[in-house]
């Protein structure tokens, strides 16, 4: 059983936590996420031009790059995480250019060697899957696709074709970290997506509080939180880990107790 399958087989919704690699003490923050109860980790690959991100994650990208973070550093962080945590699924999330610059096979092989389970590439839609998808699947790494409020019924099969791991529902048409979608629209969208796929559905964008997360967890298989962690790291710098862990725990408690899922 893959790490994703084992994680989403648990009888409770999952907390999917995002932080940007190389921003603050990433190893300590990753450990804090796991000990606080995060079920899946998304590690952001910094990029000079993060077009889909709001101010918080943009700033995290620039802080990381200003410290000289390289792609090799990211894979070293990932591989060390896998040594310390054998069960927690790890996802790399980022943009097409850093992922494809040395060729998709190189990237996919590095992911596999580092113990990365899945990859979210923001700016490779299903139409351009050939750019990265075949190499990832060949290496046993799941390409995780995004669905959005603008993804209509006609497109959805294409979005799902070749997808793996879980389906990430971007609940607002916008950028990360700002407004939150209405609960009713999330419920309708998740129902439509779950009717179309057996993949678990995680919902993100604009989720900042345990209360919001618990509401979404009533209908989704997972809840993604990112910018709220980034804000903590921006505030506390290299000493952020205890704060990250405490906040993770409040989120995880809220999400894990939101509903019982039949195992």
């Amino acid at each position, binding site marked *: 059983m893959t790490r994703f399958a084992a994680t989403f087989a648990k009888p409770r919704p999952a907390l999917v936590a995002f932080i940007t690699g190389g921003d603050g003490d990433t190893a300590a923050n990753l450990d804090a996420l796991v000990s606080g109860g995060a079920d899946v980790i998304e590690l952001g690959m910094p*990029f*000079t*031009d*993060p*077009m*889909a*991100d*709001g*101010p918080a994650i*943009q700033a995290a990208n*620039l802080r990381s*790059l200003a410290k000289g973070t*390289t*792609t090799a550093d990211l894979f070293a962080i990932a591989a060390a995480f896998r040594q310390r945590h054998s069960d927690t699924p790890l996802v790399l999330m980022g*943009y*097409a*250019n*850093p*992922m*494809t*610059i040395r060729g998709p096979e190189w990237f996919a092989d590095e992911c596999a060697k580092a113990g990365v389970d899945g990859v979210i590439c*923001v*700016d*490779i*839609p299903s*139409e*351009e899957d050939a*750019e990265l998808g075949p190499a990832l699947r060949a290496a046993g790494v799941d390409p995780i*696709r*995004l*669905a*959005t*409020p*603008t*993804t*209509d019924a006609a*497109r959805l099969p294409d*979005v799902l074709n070749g997808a793996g791991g879980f389906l990430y529902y*971007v609940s*607002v*048409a*916008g*950028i990360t970290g*700002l407004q939150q979608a209405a609960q009713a629209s999330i419920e309708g969208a998740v129902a439509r997506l779950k009717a179309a796929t057996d993949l678990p559905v995680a919902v993100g964008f604009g989720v900042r509080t345990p209360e919001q997360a618990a509401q979404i967890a009533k209908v989704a298989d997972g809840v993604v939180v990112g910018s709220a962690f980034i804000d903590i790291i921006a505030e506390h710098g290299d000493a952020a880990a205890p704060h990250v862990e405490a906040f993770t725990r409040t989120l995880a408690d809220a999400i894990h107790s939101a509903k019982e899922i039949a195992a």
Partner: protein
Amino acid sequence: MTDLPNSLRTQPDERGHFGQFGGRYVAETLMPLILDLERHYRAAQQDNAFKAEFDDLLKNYVGRPSPLWFAQRLTEHLGGAKIYLKREDLNHTGAHKINNCIGQILLAKRMGKTKIIAETGAGQHGVATATVAALFGLPCTIFMGAVDVARQQPNVFRMKLLGAEVVAVESGAKTLKDAMNEALRHWVANVHDTFYIIGTVAGPHPYPELVRDFQSVIGDEARAQILEAEGRLPDMLIAPVGGGSNAIGLFHPFLDDESVEIVGVEAAGEGLDGKHAASLAGGRPGILHGNKTYLLQDEDGQITEAHSISAGLDYPGIGPEHSWLHEIGRVRYEPVTDAEALASFQKLTKLEGIIPALESAHAIAAAERIAPTLGKDKIIIVNCSGRGDKDIFTVADALGVSL
């Protein structure tokens, strides 16, 4: 290349690819919208009323056709090929940018969009967009890097006079690529009512195609004008390339004319071993702003800052069709430095009484290099893509003159 199509004018393919370049590398949120834009553009292409309205605005509002001027004094000075200038500098708002803005705002109207956004570097595309937004009575927001806002105050004021809101972008390096990032972010959040007028032949398909089509009026006119003036096609075309919209507009109608040599001019800034904006000479293929193309970047794929004395060429990428034309060898791309462009800016001004944009001065500099090597029976058309009034502060500063 073994599998070149019979015509070089049939690109891109149905998925928006020019060879390996182009494509649609956007977030899923935008994907349905650009598919919708493509559908509307295909319908507009078949609609005679759309074409008639576009042509009427180009004639009566922009002032087309722009003249093809025989630069006799420059020609005699260089002592080689005859040089003609395609006078895009005489268009309303002072450059070729307006051709594309007219076409795109007609598309926006057709799609029922009620708000206009655009990115701008030096402010020329911003001014052209604000102009057509004023003409059509649509609210308009222009994203401009904070660094550019500070150094292009006259254009910022023009845009505001035209009724546009100018947003100073504080992210990243605060220049053109960051303005484009921010425009894309705004668009993602406002796709239901907002049309994004991209200023050059870049971005996700169908933008590189439709901007090229709207700009091809430059080459269509030049072709007819040179046939009338000389009774034959030119031997060479020369145009400056940042994103490359004026260049592709001139080049595209001539791509299948094998006798016509075509030269694109990239901004070499301080030189190719220093800071520059020559994506083909100094970059390699990558993915940014919705398309695959040559980019200035480091070994990890991080985008590096471009530099040119000409703010209109100061971008780390280039339109994907240019990357393709470069790889198949149909167009030769040559670098011209800040210093060479500055010298040609002054030379054209003194010899012809035409103050060119610094972008256009790069093409003039290439013509100065090439024309003396060709016989007097040869003909070169140089795209004078814009006028240089906007650049007098930059030029004065570079020459050590205080105004």
